[in-house]
């Protein structure tokens, strides 16, 4: 079973959700700046790598957790992946897509653009963390909902 957290660039919010899911980040408090910086792949995804799922780890239920950047094309990319798998005889319940762009703080979005598109991670990176810390409870809630309903196989567009 594979679970994909997806967002625009696959560098910040999806990585945060995957990290909460895999317990790299705590779910009972808001993590410090250095804890974000210690996450593998945080603020690392290059633009040319968009679409490539990155393996983050295996959770305690045995699911493989991935992050993937899809720009704003989730309505095209997700059906393209699913229909491709369908043609290859792989059934729908084996994969689950979760949209990680919940309650995105505008500062996170700006930080993401500055860091990944303008190539200034020194300025954009801390901005994304600042924004994510503000909306951190929403990410925790999303992940707990995903964990609760993981067996139903519903998608979280």
């Amino acid at each position, binding site marked *: 079973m594979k679970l994909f957290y997806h967002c625009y660039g696959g560098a910040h919010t999806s990585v945060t959700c995957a990290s909460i899911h895999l317990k790299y980040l705590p779910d009972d408090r808001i993590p410090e700046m250095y804890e974000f910086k210690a996450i593998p792949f945080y603020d690392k995804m290059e633009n040319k790598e968009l*679409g490539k799922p990155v393996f983050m780890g295996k959770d305690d239920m045995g699911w493989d957790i991935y992050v993937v950047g899809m720009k704003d094309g989730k309505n*095209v990319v997700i059906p*393209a992946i699913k229909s491709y*798998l369908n043609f*290859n005889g792989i059934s729908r319940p084996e994969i689950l897509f979760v949209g990680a762009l919940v309650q995105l703080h505008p500062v996170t979005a700006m930080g993401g653009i500055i860091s990944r598109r303008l190539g200034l991670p020194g300025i954009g990176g801390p901005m994304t963390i600042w924004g994510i810390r503000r909306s951190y409870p929403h990410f925790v809630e999303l992940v707990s909902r995903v964990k609760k309903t993981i067996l139903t196989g519903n998608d979280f567009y």
Partner: protein
Amino acid sequence: MKVIYCGYRGTYGAFLFAAFHLGFYKENSIPEKRQIEKHFEICRLYGEQYGNLIYVGVDEELREVYILGCKRYFSVVKKAQMHINKMFHLDDTIYHVDVRKKEGILPRIIGFLLAHRINRVICRKLFSYWIVRKYPCVSNATKTVKERLKTMDMKKR
């Protein structure tokens, strides 16, 4: 091997390429009015199916030919499908062909007009104009694609 022709919409340029590839359309003779109208009906009915892989047929070398509408996310879709292929250990090569430049802007305009239910007769006339205009260039481009595929097969053997 799977050959996937990707256009902005899945049915205009992508289907034209696939039709040449599979020999539905002949190189030197522009299709009859009836055939153009059938192609137009396919575009009208399935033009908005973004991200859904549509199977068209098998060519003489037993390659499966598909069409896909991927808006402006060709590179993301391509990367996603390639990596999913590896991730699920699917022993099949995929070859993506981006037809968006060759098909031009007219299919997007026709699709927009059809989606907004603007006079179908005008759309059909525009479509006929487009297909006649694009016919020679798409015919040549498909030949190049087939040659490239042959070279790839030779190298593999």
